[in-house]
């Protein structure tokens, strides 16, 4: 299992990766900038994502909306920002490839001359509405913010979510945009993948034609910050929900670091899917919870592992807390069964295979090549990535789980407004806004 590719670097530092696959007359363009919300400063949060919006508002040589010419050419396109990176992609019919490269290169090279205070104001309003829609007005929508705020100290770059704080977004200024662009949006901090109906020579030639003229820009220093969590912190958040939900979160290995794949497997066997341990005991047998879930959220600098469960009506979160703790302890003591390992591997293999089905978009082959290139400097890492899962044994799972699922953790009780008594005992209320 692999994604064949070739790679080169332009003189300005832009990484160019080409993957040829001729089954359909389409090409996926996928451009990563190695910047995300972890490059922001406290009091200035939400900026990387707001900036992503501005990238769709026109650049010097085409100062109208970014979508129009590309949709007219039959493209699908989008972009996204997370803590570690910002990505932009187009999937175009082959004849529209140059158009997509022209558009991507124009906004990489010439965004600022077209940036006006009006565009800035407008997109700030759009982002504030995105925040209302996806966080403030959504049940349990503020849980993530409360969790990361408790997991990381206030000056740690993972202390805030990528969407940022509303007051920081209100305070953002046009000058911040300009400085941000100069520092992070240039070829040396970017990686371009072309995948699909194209060969290496053509891909490299076209990348040169459109991106060579853009100056390289300053090297971006990696963000490095470590932190630990020694004790359990119990926090409480009230929200407009009917059923309370419990979240337990621990620091865990960074993306691709030792133990990351193992924790992914541990999260799955504990609480993902109807064959998982917590589903079986909490939902199926005891019926104290209405759903359960777990995730190893691995990120570039550090990960965090989370288990969550929503209480069935009439049950308080202390009951869930004790039941989860019992299951986790049992797992740490006995380890996984051979059947659980076998299941985890089958699921990992199916998951990896499924990801090879699309060229473009979020999570397609072009996005994966860029992830491996930007985070590991190894676009061809896919086979080794799967190998990380294949190497897992009952012993390595339990060993890593013992390191991660210890006493230092955050326990968040999210309860219906005015029902603080449903929280785990000893929780103190926190504010998120």
């Amino acid at each position, binding site marked *: 299992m692999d994604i064949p590719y070739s790679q080169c670097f332009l003189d300005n530092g832009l990484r160019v990766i080409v993957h040829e696959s001729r089954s*359909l*007359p*389409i090409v996926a363009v996928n451009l990563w900038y190695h910047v995300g919300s972890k490059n922001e400063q406290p009091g200035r949060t939400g900026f990387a994502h707001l900036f992503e919006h501005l990238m769709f508002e026109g650049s010097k040589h*085409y100062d109208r*909306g970014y*979508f*129009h*010419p590309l*949709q*007219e*050419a*039959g*493209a*699908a396109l989008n972009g996204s920002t997370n803590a570690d990176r910002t990505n932009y992609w187009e999937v*175009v*019919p*082959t*004849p*529209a490839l140059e*158009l997509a490269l*022209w*558009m991507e*290169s*124009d906004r990489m090279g010439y965004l600022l001359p077209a940036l006006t205070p009006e565009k800035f104001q*407008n*997109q*700030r*309003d*759009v982002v504030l*509405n995105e925040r*209302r*829609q996806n966080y*403030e*007005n*959504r*049940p349990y929508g503020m849980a993530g913010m409360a969790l990361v705020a408790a997991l990381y100290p206030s000056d740690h770059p993972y202390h805030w979510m990528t969407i940022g704080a509303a007051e920081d977004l209100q305070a953002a200024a046009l000058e911040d945009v300009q400085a941000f662009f100069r520092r992070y949006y240039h070829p040396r901090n970017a990686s371009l993948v072309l995948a699909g109906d194209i060969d290496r020579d053509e891909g490299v030639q076209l990348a*040169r*034609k459109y991106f060579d003229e853009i100056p390289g820009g300053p090297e971006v220093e990696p963000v490095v910050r470590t932190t630990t969590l020694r004790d359990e912190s119990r926090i409480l958040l009230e929200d*407009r*929900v009917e*059923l309370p939900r419990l979240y337990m979160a621990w620091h865990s290995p960074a993306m691709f670091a030792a133990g990351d794949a193992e924790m992914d497997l541990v999260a799955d066997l504990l609480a993902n*899917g*109807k*064959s998982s341990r917590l589903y079986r005991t909490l939902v199926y047998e005891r*019926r104290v919870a*209405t759903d359960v879930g777990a995730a190893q959220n691995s990120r570039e600098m550090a990960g965090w592992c989370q288990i969550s469960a*929503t209480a069935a*009506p009439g049950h308080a979160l202390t009951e869930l807390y004790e039941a989860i703790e019992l299951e986790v302890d049992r797992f740490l003591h006995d380890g996984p069964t051979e*059947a659980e390992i*076998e299941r985890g591997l*089958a*699921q*990992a293999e*199916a998951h990896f*295979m*499924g990801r090879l*089905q*699309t*060229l*473009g978009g979020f999570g397609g082959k072009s996005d994966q090549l860029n992830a491996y290139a930007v985070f590991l400097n190894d676009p061809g890492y896919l086979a080794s990535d799967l190998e990380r899962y294949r190497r897992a044994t009952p012993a390595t799972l339990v060993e890593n789980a013992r390191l991660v699922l210890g006493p230092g953790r955050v326990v968040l009780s999210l309860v219906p407004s005015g029902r603080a008594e449903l929280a785990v005992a000893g929780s103190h209320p926190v504010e998120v806004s």
Partner: protein
Amino acid sequence: MKGADRSRLPEVHGDPPFTFPPILKSRQPHGLGLWCIEESSLPLVSLLLVVPAGSASDPDRLPGLASLTGDMLDEGSGTRSAIDVHDAFARIGAHLEIEVAADTTLIGLTVLSRYLRQGLSLFADCVVRPSLREADVDRVRQLRLNRLVQLRDLAPAVADRAFMQMLYEGHPYGHLAIGTEAALREMSVADVMAFHASVCLPSRATLIAVGDVKAPMLAEMVEEAFSGWTRREDEAPEVGFDRALADPPPSSSRRLAIVHRTAAAQSELRIGHVAVARSTPDYIPLLVLNMVLGGQFVSRLNLKLREEKGYTYGARTSFDFRRGRGPFLMQTSVQTQVTAAAVQDAFTELQQVLGDRPVTTHELELAKSALTRGYARNFETTEQLARALAQLIVHDLPDHYYDQFPTRVREVDTASVARAASSHLHPERMLTLIVGDRPALESSLASIGLGEPAVLVPA
């Protein structure tokens, strides 16, 4: 090679031809239709069973029965408990996807091709021989009741439910698939068994398989897996398959309704009316019209409400094309203080496209290009291809439908779009539904001429 010419955008020359892969069809002895696309680029197979009955086939007294029945399929079979079934799927790295829509139930499974035989066997056990034990029905019923409780907090779900209820009162499309609390409590195991028996008929269903398998081998494996399924075509089905073809209640005036949500950060909006069935001859012109009005990022509605006004993260329109007459719908979520202004803007866009700002040639070309030029990317994965086949089955479309689609879109002109718009868009009959903070909205809503709002209490 010289550098880029920044004085103009590169031209896009020619549209690469697209051909939909051949569909290999056969029929099993008990009547089950089998449609296959051989696609061997990856060792994967996607299965999709199309059962032409969904929530619109719910008995009037039991809204939600189709969906509960669907949910019960992977909750035990033969000697296997629910946990055993989930475990068996997990061991081959797969899980059963069950989707109950208004007109159909789709049951899907994607497996590595080396597990196809096991996957098919489990799949058939779930579809043909589910245990439907009382204890399992009770357990799943309780989970769905809990889900209903949670949906009360989810503004988009509250809006969808209230909107369909008001628009389709007394019609099979008037409830969401999950149904109502009262009906869920009332459903018995016998109801679930009867529904399953009357809907899950081999003579009515079609199994689709797309991926790394040869059609003859597939037919053999399917025959083995589904061997216990008996043909019952002589029995009259107890459940109407096409109840939704009945006309929905007529509506002759504009209506405004509010569901109150205390201190909501945004208002969730639904504006629309009953429109046309998928079988309308105006289907293609309506697709084009919708692209211009609210079907893509650069549509009039999104550019107005998001890119010009900054009221919302996004706004869109759609014709929900079903076997019966589905709704036309404008939907968005806007910050509370601009709710009335957003509703007015939405109406203005509608009136203009019907009046003094009809779809222009330029907009028409943009919409047609957007629909046709990137068409191939809709058929990249085995699941996309399987779903494309399901559309052919559900809507009785010819095998060459996808090959001809781009040509048919290119034939649309501004006159046919204008005709389709005036036949199928009726601003004077729109229902406007708002889920939002009522005290904060009331005074501004009084000014927009939709009359006194009906205040709804969410179910």
